[in-house]
């Protein structure tokens, strides 16, 4: 890494053109693209150094920060930590609006804006516009708009509003996915489409809502559709051409799951041949779900990517006896070949739609006197897991919310200890299931500060009643077979922000919110945590105490991921998309009728008062100190 780093900085700034001309004389092809190549190499190195910073985050204090935000979680370790420190706990109270931008779209805005080379890139929900805003000009005027024109029909197979979780930058291109299951590469300077690849089929219920990650020249993309009986996969596309490099299915025979000689899962339950077939009745694995719509992390030293797999389908567990591998699980894979290196299943035979796709934060933590390479996962089932990221061993799993469905995680077998009374059944109503289907935490990503050693976890406090129903698989229609009715958990509040110490394994402080906290968090070297509420408040907290420092009321509920960057003027900015929606906000974004408690998979019952608290409408808000 270091020699490359030196090369770029030694050669390009003083005489980038001379070098390019020299190269150009040798090869005409290269001569056509010297400016692009130069900036992208720099960016690539920044990526690498950021990743290293994130991975080594645990011990390190604030490292020099390039002020950009080029991938969904800011770095490969997924810490969502910004090294900028102009905004501090002392001055955050003076934050004020710098500028805004209307997206013209009214569905749920879950994406993180990207900031690269003085330009901000914003991806909207369906119809998935990509806007480039010029940060070097006052008010950040629009540079260009890219419209991918996804198929309208895709709206009919998107389970939970028409969201998109953002883009990734690599080598002069912006990569993101469209609802109708395409991946696009767009030239970051011109807004012209470089390539567009169809990765899935809406006719079998496949959509793509996740933010891709680019690792070693491959764009990693996974499908959504666990409520439509899809067969989950993670796909690697060549970043230059968009051509398929590999695809790893979540279910099916080992050759499809890319399980080979390197596969060494830690627990006996995950060892054996073709478990992706044998742990299902008949051919149910072909429509068994296990999509990959969440987050991907990457450890450059171990050279492994990490990602989770979603719930098995249908929700009604009666029709799929067995462990349903490898749904509600996670994989460590080789990014070059896709080969599985290890797996771990959070919820074997998932009973509650507990997708295992949440973020995996890669940290080096002192555990029992040793520094361990771990990944930390605030899981949907209510436990925060700390796993050895080289082997897949669970080092700890502690509850961070109210749980009635399990009594703990057996660290010997890796399996949750289930409460049989809470298992849903066909034709029977089971009440008091906590956490509810969206879990203690859903997709909304946590952040981690190496300065405080704490995770800042946005999440919810929900329980539910469930009745299993008859399951009919009809391709392109939902495959859920459960009637659900959610409501607030103990205390009556539906959202929380928890600051969690992963070494001491306990919560340090908690903030209660009326509605689920469906936005991400971000934390800075100024020890300020930012997040948004579904009423529309954007808040700044003291990272050490949880004390509120500042708040601003945006136009709609916030479910986006805040980002922090340094503008071309040298100032620190905080940006967030406002625009309610997502599963939690579908009642507003989709104009649903609150008299039906089961609407939007039962989430509406818990959100009946949201239409009185906010209205829809997408808008970007950017804040700075005066």
């Amino acid at each position, binding site marked *: 890494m270091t020699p490359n780093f030196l090369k770029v900085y030694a050669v390009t700034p003083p005489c980038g053109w001379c070098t390019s001309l020299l190269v150009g004389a040798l090869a005409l092809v290269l001569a056509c693209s010297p400016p692009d190549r130069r900036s992208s190499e720099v960016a690539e190195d920044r990526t690498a150094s950021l990743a290293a910073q994130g991975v080594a985050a645990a011990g390190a204090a604030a490292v020099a920060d390039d002020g950009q935000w080029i991938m969904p979680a800011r770095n490969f370790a997924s810490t969502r930590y910004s090294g900028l420190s102009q905004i501090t706990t002392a001055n955050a109270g003076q934050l004020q609006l710098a500028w805004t931008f209307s997206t013209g779209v009214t569905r749920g805005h879950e994406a993180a804006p990207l900031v690269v080379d003085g330009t901000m890139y914003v991806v909207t929900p369906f119809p998935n516009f990509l806007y480039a805003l010029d940060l070097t000009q006052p008010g950040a005027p629009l540079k260009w708009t890219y419209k991918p024109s996804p198929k309208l029909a895709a709206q009919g197979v*998107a389970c939970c509003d028409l969201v998109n979780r953002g883009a990734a930058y690599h080598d002069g291109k912006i990569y993101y996915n469209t609802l109708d299951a395409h991946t696009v590469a767009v030239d970051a300077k011109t807004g012209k489409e470089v390539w567009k690849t169809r990765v899935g089929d809406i006719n079998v219920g496949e959509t793509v809502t996740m933010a891709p990650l680019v690792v070693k020249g491959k764009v990693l993309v996974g499908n959504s559709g666990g409520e439509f009986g899809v067969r989950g996969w993670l796909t690697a596309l060549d970043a230059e051409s968009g051509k398929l490099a590999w695809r790893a299915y979540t279910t099916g025979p080992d050759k499809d799951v890319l399980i080979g000689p390197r596969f060494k899962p830690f627990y006996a339950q995950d060892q054996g041949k073709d478990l992706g077939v044998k742990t299902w009745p008949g051919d149910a694995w072909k429509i068994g779900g296990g999509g990959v719509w969440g987050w991907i992390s990457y450890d450059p030293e171990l050279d492994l990517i990490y990602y989770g797999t979603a719930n098995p389908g249908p929700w009604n567990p009666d029709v799929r006896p067995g462990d349903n591998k490898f749904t509600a699980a996670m994989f460590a894979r080789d990014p070059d070949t896709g080969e599985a290196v290890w797996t771990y299943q959070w919820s074997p035979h998932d009973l509650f739609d507990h997708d295992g796709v949440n973020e995996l934060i890669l940290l080096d933590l002192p555990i029992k006197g040793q520094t361990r390479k771990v990944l930390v996962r605030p899981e949907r089932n209510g436990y925060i897991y700390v796993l050895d990221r080289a082997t897949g061993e669970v080092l700890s799993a502690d509850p961070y919310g109210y749980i009635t469905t399990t009594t703990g995680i057996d660290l010997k077998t890796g399996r949750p200890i289930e409460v049989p009374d809470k298992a849903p059944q066909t034709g029977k109503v089971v009440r008091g299931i906590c956490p509810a289907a969206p879990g203690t935490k859903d997709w909304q990503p946590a952040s981690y500060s190496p300065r405080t050693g704490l995770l800042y976890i946005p999440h919810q406090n929900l329980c539910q*009643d469930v009745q299993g*129903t008859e399951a009919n698989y009809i391709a392109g229609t939902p495959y859920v077979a459960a009637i659900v009715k959610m409501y607030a958990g103990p205390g009556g509040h539906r959202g929380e922000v928890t600051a969690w110490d992963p070494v001491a394994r306990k919560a340090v402080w908690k903030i209660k919110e009326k509605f689920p906290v469906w936005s991400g968090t971000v934390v800075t070297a100024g020890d300020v945590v930012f997040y948004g509420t579904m009423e529309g408040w954007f808040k700044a907290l003291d990272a050490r105490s949880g004390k509120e420092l500042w708040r601003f009321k945006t136009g709609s509920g916030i479910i986006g991921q805040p980002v922090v960057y340094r503008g071309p003027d040298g100032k620190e900015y905080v940006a967030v998309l406002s625009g309610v929606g997502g599963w939690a906000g579908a009642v507003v974004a*989709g104009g649903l009728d609150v008299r*039906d408690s*089961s*609407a*939007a998979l039962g989430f509406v019952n818990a959100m009946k008062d949201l239409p009185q608290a906010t209205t829809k409408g997408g808008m970007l808000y950017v804040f700075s100190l005066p």
Partner: protein
Amino acid sequence: MRTSVLILTVLVSLFGCEREERNLQGIPQSVASGMPPVRQTELQAGPTVRDAGTYSPYEGNAYAVSQGKTLYNQFNCSGCHFQGGGGIGPPLMDSEWIYGSDPENIFETIVEGRPNGMPSFGGKIVNDQIWQLVAYVRSMSGLLRKDVAPGRSDDMQVRPQEQATQKARPVQSAVPPSAERQ
């Protein structure tokens, strides 16, 4: 005499072979064959023609409506519209209709699908069952008589019964809620 035979022959050849039309199922075979034109707008070009009324056969048939309710769940209508509150698809228990609330409109919506995500079920469900579905869907917002609409549910109670649902006077939804302009 010869003239009358000729006239008779002509008449027989004209009408003799045409039998009385009997629709044994008592329902139209398709939208095209039996129904008045299906409109989604009040505006008509030229003189306004009043439609002759509906062909929907089950508007007053409690048994068929309850069959429709079963089919509504079995064909996964409930997967998107849930028990009327909506989710992936729009609510069906409220007053807003994007593509029309008349039985013929709903029949067409099911058969042909709609561009913003409603799948086409044409050729997948027999017409008789589609009409049962149509009647049930209309009962969800109280558009059927109370003694026809279902009064109980076999599953977990998640909404007021169709029978107890107040009639929601249909209004046309200006913009499909899910359709942003591309």
